[in-house]
Structures are given as structure tokens and as C-alpha cells.
């Protein structure tokens, strides 16, 4: 226990030597010819089994490992993946896909059976897949998830080893788009049947995409290496890609600046000004298919009153929130379906979009008076938001904005998990909320407001007219007509002030200038197979 001078001297020397050692090794060790990409990837994926994941950061890794019937190109657009040919029946209810000849990374051929097996597994109640609902357009999928009929009754079957026939519940013109989603990836049946749940472990996992799993050090990194059996491997430039769970985005920015990371998602919001001033070339932004909004609990008074909802909407200053508080390239939103959604004409907006601010406030005040409120009788209510610093500042700004229209807002800050639980139970007055689309279709935004969507329709907006319009659009086969019908539905929701839209988000990725081929896109998907690292 006694300290000796000698010990201290030795220790000090050790550290000094270690610290002063020549700094020959660059951040990327390995052979000079090997091209490596270090991706800062938000957080640890919950799994690499496509049936067990639901996060974007898991999807980034799975999308490098697996190839669905369709996949994304460098710009995030849908292109054929494992399917080379497809045809649709006249009633649009049956699709046939012909697979390309390709192999799992262990050399076993990928068959139609692997896809059908994966889909059966996905909807099997025993799998308890969080995202099984993505497959609901498949015939019988929902009934299987509900446990009413066996997984084998799913409307998907193999015609032969290379051909899949898929029956749908209703025409789904965006099916190719849906089939890029991770829940539709094939899984290696031969491995799952021999290894069970351990099939996702490094050493067991085989994949059919551009990369294959090499190492998973929990909460440290996940390394994928190029899959030489990938059908297009000749055009894949990066040999090794390492994904890091970078929960602390400020620390990740320092790692990026030190050259330890080549890309980082998300950027630290607090440092956006510094980023814009110092490393603007690394900021890769594009609007994404998302909507930040505010829900009003229409099960509670007075939010069942459209006049109050309109007043809140009028008094909500989107530009201040996006330009002064969030500042991450968000686009102020005056409607529900973001720009860039496929097969959608767009053009709907709240009627007050072009009204000057002073007039908006005057009208909001008048509406509040009609509803029985005024300067002496303010509406006392609560606003639920997350405890993130920006959310806190935004809430304070909203409190201020609505004070002008006779609302005394109490801010309730809750940890994410608790806030979602309360949204679910309709235990709130007004709350911030956000939606990021699962697939590129207007229905994936407008379904948030249907009466039948008990889960995600947090505010319980309910309108027969809206539901009818939504249903009519969903059933339409002609893409142009369908888009028009969805637009009608959106107009109804905006007229009813079903929600308060705030903004459409932008991608929040930082990319070193020497990483080539990174095109920010609406899906926020950048598969490593399209990238290359060209260090100066």
C-alpha cells in the first residue's frame, strides 16, 4: 500500500513514452490498398435480424448486408435489387417477381424460398416483429399477426426457385418502394434452420448484399467487409466499413475533426452555427420524408372545437421555430405531405399560409373570443415535449407565441419513453410529435389522421369525410388519380385543423469531403456500395 518514489517514476515514464510515441499510424490502419469507411451511426442497433429492428441506424447496417427485391440507388431512388423482372395482374392484386441469379455470402444460391420464408417469419406472432405492419399490404398478413390464421396462409408463394408470386389485400402501386424496406429482406433459411436465433452472430450470419458481417464488438463497433459473392461486387469500391454507435454527437464531431470518423449522423444540433461557419463542405442536407408537428388532444375540451384548433395553428409561428431555434435546415410546413413524395401532386396548404403575421394573430384572437376566451379569461392548458435542449427552447417560444392569443401554457417536459406512453394513453392536452415515413407514399403520412389508426392518431382526430376520402384514394389503381384523391383528403384535414404542422426535416449528416458519392436524399439512405474514399 505504501507508495514508492520508484513506482511513480516508472508509471510517469510509461505514460510519457506512450504519449510521445511517434504518431505514424494513421486513423485507418490496414493495408494501403484497402479502402475503409468509418461511419458514425447514431446508436447501437437493437439487432441485425431484420425482423427485430425498427431504427434507422439498424437499417443503415442491414441495408449494406441484405438486398431486397428492390433497393436504393446512390440518390435513394428505388431500383431493382434481387428482382430482375416483375409483372402485375390486371386487377393489380397479384405481382410476380423473377429473381436474379445470385448467392448468399457462403455460396448458397438465394432462392424464392428464402424470401417467402423471411416473410412468413416476419408475420408469425411468435417472431414478435415490431415492424410486421409494413407487410400488411400482403394478403392475410394482418390476420396472421393477430394470430387468427397460420403464417403459411400469407399471400406469398414460390412458383419455382427463382419466381415469387405475391397476392395483395388491395392495389398497392407503391409496392416496389415498399419492397426496399428492411422487413422485406430475404433471410438465409439454411442458416436460421441450423443455428436458430444465433444466426445473426458474426461467423454465422450470411448475407446477399454488398457487404457481410465480420465483427460486432457491442457498443464499440460493427465491421462489415465486402461480399465478394455480391452480384455487383465489381463495382463496390469500399472494402471495409465500420459503423460506430455515436450517441454523443458532440464527441462524434471531435472524432470527425480528428479524422477518426469519415461520416457522422446526426450532427450535434448545438454546434450547427460552428459547422456552417467552419466546415460547410461537410454538411450534407436534403429534406427528408418526415413531419414535425403538434397534436391537440381532441378527446379533451376545448380541442374538439375547430375554432380553438385554428387559433392555435394561426398563432404558431413556424418560421421563428425553424429559423431561430432548430436551424437545421428544416422547411416550415403548412401542410402534411412533404415535398418530394412520389406520385403526389402536392399543393395543399393551410388557408392562412400567405396571410401576414399580424392578421393571423388578429384572426386567432377573434376565434378564441368566439370560443369563450379572452385576455381576462385565458385558456389554461399544458404542452408536452421532450427534455432535449432544443425542444425546451421551442416550447418556451410556443408559450410566448400563444400568450398573444389568450393561452396560458404550462410546459411539461418528459423523458421520451414517458412522453410516448402518455401520447398512447391520450394523457395530454397538446404535445409535440414527429413522424418519419417508412416508405415513400402519401398514404404513409395521411394515415396518421384516420379514425382507424388508433395507435398513431395521437390526437384522435376523427372525420367520416376524411376517412372516406382516404379510403377512396387507397383503393385507386391509377397512380395520377390516386395522388389527386389523397390530395383531396389532405385538404379536408387541413381545413379541419386536425394538427399543427411545424416543419419537414432535413438530413443531418456530416461527410468528409474525401468521401465521394454521398448524395443526400429524401429517404436519408446512403448505401456504402455507392461510396468511395479518396483521401488526398
Amino acid at each position, binding site marked *: *500500500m505504501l*507508495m514508492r518514489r520508484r513506482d511513480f517514476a516508472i508509471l510517469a515514464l510509461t505514460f510519457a513514452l506512450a504519449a510521445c510515441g511517434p504518431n505514424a499510424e494513421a486513423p485507418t490502419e490496414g493495408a494501403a490498398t484497402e479502402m475503409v469507411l468509418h461511419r458514425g451511426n447514431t446508436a447501437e442497433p437493437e439487432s441485425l435480424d431484420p425482423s*427485430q429492428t425498427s431504427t434507422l441506424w439498424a437499417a443503415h447496417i442491414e441495408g449494406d448486408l441484405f438486398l431486397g427485391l428492390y433497393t436504393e440507388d446512390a440518390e435513394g431512388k428505388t431500383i431493382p435489387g434481387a428482382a430482375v423482372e416483375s409483372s402485375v395482374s390486371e386487377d393489380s392484386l397479384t405481382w410476380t417477381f423473377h429473381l436474379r441469379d445470385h448467392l448468399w455470402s457462403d455460396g448458397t444460391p438465394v432462392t424464392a424460398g428464402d424470401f417467402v420464408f423471411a416473410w412468413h417469419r416476419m408475420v408469425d406472432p411468435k417472431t414478435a416483429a415490431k415492424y410486421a405492419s409494413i407487410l400488411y399490404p400482403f394478403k392475410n398478413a394482418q390476420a396472421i399477426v393477430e394470430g387468427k390464421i397460420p403464417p403459411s396462409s400469407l399471400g406469398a408463394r414460390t412458383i419455382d426457385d427463382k419466381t415469387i408470386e405475391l397476392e395483395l389485400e388491395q392495389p398497392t402501386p407503391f409496392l416496389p418502394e415498399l419492397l426496399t424496406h428492411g422487413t422485406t429482406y430475404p433471410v438465409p433459411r439454411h442458416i436460421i434452420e441450423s443455428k436458430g436465433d444465433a444466426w445473426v452472430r458474426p461467423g454465422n450470419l450470411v448475407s446477399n448484399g454488398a457487404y457481410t458481417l465480420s465483427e460486432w464488438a457491442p457498443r464499440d463497433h460493427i465491421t462489415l467487409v465486402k461480399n465478394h459473392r455480391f452480384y455487383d461486387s465489381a463495382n463496390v469500391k469500399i472494402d471495409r466499413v465500420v459503423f460506430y*454507435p455515436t450517441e454523443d454527437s458532440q*464527441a462524434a464531431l471531435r472524432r470527425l*475533426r480528428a479524422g*477518426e470518423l469519415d461520416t457522422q449522423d446526426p450532427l450535434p444540433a448545438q454546434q450547427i452555427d460552428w459547422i456552417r461557419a467552419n466546415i460547410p463542405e461537410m454538411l450534407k442536407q436534403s429534406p427528408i420524408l418526415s413531419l414535425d408537428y403538434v397534436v391537440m388532444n381532441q378527446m379533451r375540451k376545448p380541442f374538439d372545437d375547430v375554432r380553438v384548433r385554428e387559433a392555435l395553428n394561426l398563432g404558431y409561428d413556424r418560421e421563428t421555430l425553424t429559423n431561430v431555434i432548430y436551424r437545421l435546415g428544416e422547411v416550415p410546413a403548412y401542410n402534411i405531405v412533404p415535398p418530394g413524395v412520389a406520385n403526389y401532386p402536392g399543393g395543399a396548404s393551410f388557408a392562412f399560409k400567405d396571410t401576414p403575421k399580424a392578421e393571423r394573430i388578429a384572426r386567432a384572437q377573434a376565434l378564441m373570443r368566439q370560443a369563450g376566451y379572452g385576455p381576462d379569461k385565458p385558456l389554461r392548458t399544458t404542452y408536452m415535449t421532450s427534455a432535449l435542449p432544443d425542444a425546451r427552447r421551442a416550447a418556451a417560444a410556443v408559450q410566448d407565441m400563444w400568450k398573444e392569443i389568450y393561452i396560458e401554457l404550462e410546459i411539461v417536459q418528459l423523458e421520451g*419513453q414517458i412522453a410516448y406512453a402518455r401520447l*398512447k394513453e391520450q394523457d395530454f392536452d397538446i404535445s409535440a410529435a414527429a413522424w418519419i415515413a417508412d416508405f415513400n407514399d402519401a398514404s404513409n403520412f395521411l394515415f396518421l389522421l384516420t379514425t382507424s389508426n388508433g395507435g398513431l392518431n395521437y390526437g384522435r382526430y376523427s372525420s367520416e369525410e376524411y376517412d372516406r376520402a382516404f379510403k377512396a384514394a387507397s383503393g385507386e389503381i391509377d397512380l395520377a388519380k390516386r395522388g389527386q384523391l389523397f390530395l383531396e383528403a389532405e385538404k379536408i384535414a387541413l381545413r379541419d385543423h386536425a394538427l399543427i404542422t411545424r416543419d419537414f426535416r432535413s438530413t443531418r449528416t456530416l461527410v468528409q469531403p474525401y468521401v465521394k458519392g454521398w448524395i443526400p436524399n429524401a429517404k436519408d439512405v446512403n448505401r456504402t456500395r455507392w461510396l468511395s474514399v479518396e483521401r488526398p
Partner: protein
Amino acid sequence: MLSYAIRRTLGAIPTLFLIITFAFFMMRIAPGGPFDGERRLPPEIEANINAAYNLDKPLYEQYFIYLGRLAQGDFGPSFKTKDFTVTEMIASGLPVSIKLGLTAIVLALLIGTFLGVFAALRQNRPADYSVMTIAMVGITIPTFVTAPLLTLLFGVYGVHIFGLDITLPVGGWNNGALRNMILPVIVLALPQIAVIARLTRGSMVEVLHSNYVRTARAKGLSSWRVVTRHAMRAGLLPLVSYLGPAIAGLATGSLIVEQIFGIPGIGRYFVQGALNRDYTLVLGVVIFYATLIILLNLVADILYRVLDPRVRYD
């Protein structure tokens, strides 16, 4: 002594059991569950997930299922990192935290005691004041300040002294490479050095004024022998009781340091597990942490007895 150790160990079992029970029910009282996410799940999917994790059973039944598994040494699968069991996660995170924590505590002990004794021997002189001022600063500056500062300095800007390039990795574990450990160890050790220096100085000052030290000096022993043989033995006692919990704390990982440096230790598991309502992971870490504290406190008490013959445990 042996019977004392056995008695203490047996006494720890009910404590541990109470901790498990409290932790289990407190986790469940917290609103929100492991599968309440950004997206509300359709009810049928939620039902399937709850069934898969036994969350549909009454709470007391879940508790007994958990205890039953625990008795067989099974901490269950992590709710949030499904490809790994809780045991596997602790097994992968613990060595990292221990390696980092122990290095930091050894470093802190060496430097801290040295500074403390040094200051005590020069009581109320400039050297004493400067060491204690620096120590006070060390205690008050939090790790979330020192860590980013040091990483900016040594990682982003790079330090060049006498033509030597001292650039260190900003983050990552790299399987525990020395280069990756230097900054996190320093950040962890700094506040400990400060605490240990102050503790040591305080008790050394007292001991140096005691009768037996005066006797030793009167016998004509060299100053070095008086300090190392007689004064330090008693002077370091308060440190022993401090070290038990300190080692437990450092070995089980520091959330902030692990988060900032991207180190895969178990400190992150604990806090993230709690925020995510990863019930099994949190319970696993709680049980582990409680056991460690109980053990290290026991060791500290026994050491105390060894160092100070006046202490009796009867």
C-alpha cells in the same frame, strides 16, 4: 477475522435480495415500457411482443419468473440489444470498465498520496497551499468539461512539444490499446487524485502531530523512516475506507467518460438501459454493482483491521 468475513458475507444475501426486489419493482413503476418508441405499435403487434417477453403476465408472476432464472445464473436476454444476453453484455463491458477504472485508480493513488504527503510535510507553506488549491480545482471541474477540453487539445488540434507529435485518439476503444486509454484514464483519474490528495494531507497532518510520531523522531529515526514507516501507516487509513466504494465506482464504469470517448464499458449500459426501460439489463447491472460494492466494502473493513490493530470486529 474469518468468522467475521463469513458473517458479513451471509448478511449480504438478504441485502442483495432486497436490492433485486426493489430494483425490479421500481423499474416497473417507471412509466413507459421497453417497447414504447417513437412509433406507437399496432395493438396486435404490441400483444405479440409482450407475450414474447412475458410482459403480458401479472407483475408478481414476472418477478418470480425472473428470480427463478436468476437462481440458475440466467440474467435473461437484453430487451433492447436482442442479439446478446445480459450476461454476455456484462461480460463484454466489464473488462473494459475494470481496465480503465483500475488504471485510473492506481494512477490516482500514486499521484494523490504523493501529493498529499508532500503537502502535509510542508503544512501551511506555499507548497502546501498550491497543491491543495490545485486539488480543489481538480475536484470542482467536472469530467464533462475536462474530457472535451483534453480531446480538443490532444486529438483535434494536436500537441507538438520539442518536435514530438503528441496526438491521441479522440475516441474509440480499439481493444484497449494504450493510446486509446490515455485520455480517458487521465480524465477519470484527475478528480480522484484531488480527493485522495486532500484526504491524505488531512490525516497525515493529524498523524504527524501525534505522540508516537514525536517519540519516533525523538528516538533519532531519519525523517524518511518516520514518515514512511510510522506516519503513513496510520495516515493512509481514511484512504482505505474511501477506496472501496471508489474502486467499485470506477470499475463499474463512468457514463460520461464512456459516452464522450465512445468506450464500450458497462457504465453506459446502466444509464441507457434505464432510459430505454431495458429491464433485464438494468437489473443485471444493479445486481452486479451491488455485489461488487458489498464485497469491496468488506475488503476495505478487513484491510482496516490489518492496518490498524486498534480496530476490533467482535
